[in-house]
């Protein structure tokens, strides 16, 4: 098992012919991911190191059997690329692109959410199920297979926490970066629900950061629904008060959005919160031996 990506993943990279898309797409293939196609409008018929390139995602699905897409196209075209993947019946769409306007994502996410397709990202590092498939930019060599699920808003903290876990030989079932955008395709709860149903996952580490109320909502969900232990980390205890939204933003969040408020909410739901990435791995060890 594991979630979202595995040995059955047949990956199409939207933007495979671009510099970053090529580098990371081929890196994913070297990891063992079944990279079946690339899509770049106008470059259909060519190939990238033997991977066929199509003009449309629909062709990548019918001709190459793609079932998962990684979106690596520039921000002005990325929301459209996500919708194209959804329209072509791709059920797992992983959008790496950073800087997509929130208006575009609001439309795309509302549309996709109306039925069960899974959109991860945008502005995220992707998803890796160690030993099975890597879709995104998470460095595969720091991961190892095992029973820990990981879900994080921050990309680089995925790497850092995985690194800490792997050093303690705590392998991972799947690591998911949900991204830091205002409107993510999936939030903590969507991914926690997947882990809750996954036989290969024994414990989940969730990594949050300041701003918004996604962690607080996840804490409430864990308390009511999660049957597996959860350990958390929150970044930003000493972060300056940066650009804040207007007053209206603070109201709907129903929280101050600070790291301490989040840590309190998590702890109140019975979730232990590590004070630094190393301590998170230590808490995971403790939780598993208790």
């Amino acid at each position, binding site marked *: 098992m594991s979630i979202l990506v595995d040995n059955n993943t047949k990956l199409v990279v939207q933007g495979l012919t671009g510099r970053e898309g090529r580098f990371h797409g081929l890196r994913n293939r070297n990891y063992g991911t079944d990279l079946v196609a690339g899509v770049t409008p106008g470059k259909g018929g060519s190939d990238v190191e033997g991977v066929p390139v199509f003009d449309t995602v629909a062709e990548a699905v019918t001709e190459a059997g793609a079932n998962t897409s990684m979106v690596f196209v520039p921000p002005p075209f990325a929301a459209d690329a996500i919708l194209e993947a959804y329209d072509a019946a791709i059920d797992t769409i992983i959008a790496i692109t950073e800087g997509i*306007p929130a208006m575009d994502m609001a439309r795309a996410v509302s549309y996709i959410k109306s039925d069960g397709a899974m959109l991860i990202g945008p502005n995220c590092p992707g998803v890796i199920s160690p030993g099975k498939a890597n879709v995104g930019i998470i460095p595969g060599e720091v991961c190892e297979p095992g029973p820990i699920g990981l879900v994080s808003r921050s990309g680089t903290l995925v790497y*850092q926490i995985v690194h800490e876990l792997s050093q303690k030989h705590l392998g991972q079932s799947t690591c998911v970066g949900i991204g830091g955008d205002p*409107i993510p395709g999936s939030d903590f709860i969507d991914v926690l629900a997947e882990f809750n149903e996954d036989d290969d996952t024994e414990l989940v580490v969730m990594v949050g950061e300041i701003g918004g109320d996604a962690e607080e909502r996840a804490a409430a969900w864990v308390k009511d629904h999660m049957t597996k232990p959860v350990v958390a980390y929150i970044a930003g205890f*000493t*972060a300056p008060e940066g650009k804040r939204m207007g*007053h209206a933003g603070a109201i709907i969040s129903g929280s101050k959005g600070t790291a301490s408020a989040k840590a309190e909410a998590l702890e109140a739901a019975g979730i232990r919160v590590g004070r630094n990435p190393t301590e998170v791995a230590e808490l995971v060890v403790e939780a598993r031996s208790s």
Partner: protein
Amino acid sequence: MDLFEYQGKELLRRFEVPVPEGRVASSADEAERAAAGLGGKVIVKAQVQVGGRGKAGGIKVADSPQEARAVADQILGMDIKGHVVKRVLVERAGDIKEEYYLSFLVDRSERKFLGMMSAEGGVEIEQVAEENPDAIARVHVDPTIGISDFHARRLVFGAKLNPEARKGAIAMIPKLYRAFVELDASLVEVNPLVLTGDGKVVALDAKVTLDESADYRHSNFAELKSAHEVPEQERLAKSKGLNFIKLDGDVGIIGNGAGLVMSTLDVVKAAGGEPANFLDVGGGAQAEVLSNAIEVITSDPGVKSIFLNIFGGITRGDLVAEGIVDAFGRLDVTIPIVVRLDGTNAEEGRKMLADAPHDMLHSEDTMLGAARRAVELARGGAE
């Protein structure tokens, strides 16, 4: 990007949202001319991006152009909670009967747009939310469908607006929504929205926040932005593609990804140090970006050591190392830089650093170890 009131109102006017007639002025002379042009009684309002300007004396009424000149002279240059007033908005004064609240924003948790309206305007909406949450009507708008008249009716009737204001408010709501969407705003807030003596509904204030990710499709964003002042070091950092925020400590921080940088600040603080800044080189940083980051941090004489914490994903360790080596070659680096490098191509990067030793270059294997080392070095350096 948060806009000034006068900028927000100019934009709302294009969407036919009723706003008072007014002109922006950056000197007492200009304020006098603006008042003369408008005729009659005017209000002179400080243009600052901070709440509570009225209480601070930043909003004054003037009965004549001469008086407008005098109050503008008082307000310009005033320091309101650390914000110096560079401009005033001179507006025709109206007869206010009642004050309301209206806004549209992106609701992160519902992944939809949220409209909010209250008959209790003019005060901080957070206060209304806390003391009398039922006084705020809320309606979600599905971005794929857009606004429909019923949304406006739900807000207006839900907020129990004075029947006299209903028609004007119901007409205004879709206009404000259109402005919100077409401007690529993350917030448009009108507080207060007022009912005038002659029965009109007018946006007396405007707070507009634009989504900078959408700047490529708005030719006016750059101009709107040019009215905003940014501290010199932050401006320099931004011009070099770095996300930088100045803090008060002496341990310079450079990292990749906002989450890891925030975590780095936390561990430096926990190790007994005080971070001097937040600096995120972003994803996929090239050598030049790293080199520039080091330049920006070392330009601050208050920084005593630097902790450079990179965990490469899309960022490549070899390019990071290239940037560090370049910075040491190009700049006269006199403070220690502690480097912790992991992730994509980290081994190549570490080897490149080992091959280019420098007295001020320290490598550490772990994030916590590197944090402790950087803090020690900032204190004057037990090795």
